[in-house]
């Protein structure tokens, strides 16, 4: 019955309730979205890392893959040492650089390794294991490059290290033949990417035996990624073997990402706190006004013998009702707002196309609703206590006067 009374009380001022529910819904939606922010980046980054299919990355000391132009100078020696470890199944050396077709830049990755899973060939055929001495170098392009360079499988392309007219332009071009179309999970939107044999890119860069990093696949049943504990253990022992290099298991890369996302998280934390404060204050204000307006009724109920606990339950039920209505609306709003904001942010040209900022998730929405619920109930405590402790004789006297 107290719930019925609470429902009727909430519906007594419909316009006030409507505005309160709308405001609370927005606060809940904002809180849910702030919880989703950055979690989306973490989740998609892990998904992309996993899809590449290598557990360990060996990089120049203090760098992350492609974070700088630094290279591992004697990468062949590193790969030989890696293969000496029985836990290593296969490796892939990667050297990244920017090459040009006429004046159009193409991000080129030289690769050297067998059964690679860095990219997926979606048409044509993969690179051969070895480069023939008299043959044109074979080349794979992503769809952006195919489109922008107006080429198809079987066409030839000449790659230059420098754009035409650049100072100290490298005059000799590399004649290549396009053998396939590829997809790479971490390509940026609109990025033109080419895959060539490592040796060809090393020659273009005049970089000897250099590699930007080495990807390592550990031995496992059916080629699955090995568990994180094992990854960490192998990475630690490889780090001992290569003290002048940095060795990362997947979780250490995730930690590096989390450090980079610290600003996002701080931003999300501040907005989440504001959202909870808004919920708290809104519920406190609305219920305090409601209790103030109904002091006479509350005093009459108390004079009739209603226990303090019953009065408190009535006020807390009103808060719970407001929050329940707002939770439904806020969840839907948060879900769609997350999708909309994600659409805006993922259009950033510096973000790989597979990455997301917000991933709509019921768990985050449920957490936001639970947190808002706690804030709302805490906010209702003071008006509930005030209502229960109303001075009966004085209030009834004031109401009559």
């Amino acid at each position, binding site marked *: 019955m107290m719930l*019925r009374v609470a429902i*009727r009380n909430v519906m007594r001022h419909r316009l006030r309730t409507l505005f309160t529910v709308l405001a609370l819904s927005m606060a809940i939606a904002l809180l849910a979205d702030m919880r989703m922010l950055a979690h989306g980046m973490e989740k998609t980054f892990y998904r992309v890392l996993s899809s590449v299919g290598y557990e360990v990355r060996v990089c120049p000391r203090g760098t992350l893959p492609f974070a700088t132009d630094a290279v591992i100078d004697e990468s062949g020696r590193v790969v030989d040492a890696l293969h000496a470890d029985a836990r290593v199944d296969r490796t892939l050396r990667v050297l990244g650089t920017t090459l040009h077709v006429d004046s159009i830049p193409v991000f080129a990755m030289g690769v050297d390794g067998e059964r690679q899973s860095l990219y997926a060939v979606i048409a044509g055929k993969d690179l051969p294991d070895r480069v023939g001495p008299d043959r044109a170098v074979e080349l794979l392009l992503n769809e952006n490059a195919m489109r922008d360079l107006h080429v198809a499988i079987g066409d030839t392309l000449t790659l230059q290290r420098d754009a035409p007219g650049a100072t100290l332009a490298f005059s000799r071009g590399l004649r290549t033949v396009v053998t396939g179309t590829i997809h790479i999970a971490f390509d940026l939107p609109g990025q033109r990417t080419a895959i060539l044999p490592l040796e060809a890119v090393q020659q273009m860069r005049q970089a000897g035996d250099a590699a930007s990093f080495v990807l390592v696949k550990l031995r496992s049943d059916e080629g699955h990624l090995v568990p994180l504990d094992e990854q960490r253990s192998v990475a630690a022992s490889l780090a001992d073997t290569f003290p002048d290099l940095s060795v990362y298991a997947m979780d250490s890369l995730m930690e590096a990402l989390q450090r980079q996302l610290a600003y996002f998280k701080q931003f999300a934390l501040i907005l989440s706190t504001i959202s909870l404060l808004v919920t708290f204050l809104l519920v406190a204000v609305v219920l305090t006004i409601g209790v103030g307006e109904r002091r*006479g*009724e509350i005093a009459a109920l108390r004079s*009739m*013998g209603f226990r303090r606990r019953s009065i408190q339950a009535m006020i807390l039920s009103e808060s719970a009702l407001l929050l329940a209505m707002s939770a439904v609306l806020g969840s839907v709003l948060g879900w769609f707002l997350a999708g909309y904001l994600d659409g805006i942010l993922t259009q950033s040209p510096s973000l790989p196309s597979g990455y997301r900022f917000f991933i709509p998730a019921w768990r985050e929405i449920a957490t936001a609703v639970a947190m808002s619920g706690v804030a709302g109930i805490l906010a209702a405590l003071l008006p509930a206590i005030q209502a229960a402790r109303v001075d009966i004789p004085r209030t009834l006297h004031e109401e009559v006067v």
Partner: protein
Amino acid sequence: MTSSDILIRAEGVGKTYRMGSERVDAVQDVDLSIARGEFVSLMGPSGCGKTTLLNLFGCIDVPTTGRLHVFGEDVTGMTERRRAELRLNRIGFVFQRFYLLPMLTAFENVELPMIESKTPHRERDARARALLERVGLAHRLRHRPHQLSGGEMQRVAIARALSNQPDLIIADEPTGELDRKTGASILKLIKELQSGGLTVVMATHDPHAAELGDRVVQMEGARA
């Protein structure tokens, strides 16, 4: 009159309030006994302490001086919880301004105290219907207070006061907001309650209303 016949016994009862730094003696040195089944009218001008004395008799408030026994229990040292129990189960209140909950129907308003006292659903349903029928509102069960006249609202309030089958009815200016004719019908109803065996203590400043009581206690200057 034996002690078991006494429902309320006040000995030198006083109630003092503080209003800022000022001390207000609302009730002073009241000696009064009210017997079971008696109808006592408290008469006097506004501000003479009638409502304060009713609040004391109804266990809403506690005296600051003297001794007050209601149903044989000493109210002076009684806990708030125990006083609330007495108010819920043994005392019915009728207010000048009715204090019906505006968002509940007449039926629900009558039902409310029985829910608080945990009366079984079937019993409270039957009792609420019977009480509203008794006060002549069988046809107004589903009406909300704003759909009722002043007299009808006071009848609902009387039915509500009776819902937990009290022994004592405390009525504070029950006709204060009603016209003479409607007020007379309400007073008649209250008189009928006494005929049914209830004890009634009513505060009023209307001499005609007061005359309905078996005894009229005149109050003046906080004294009875």
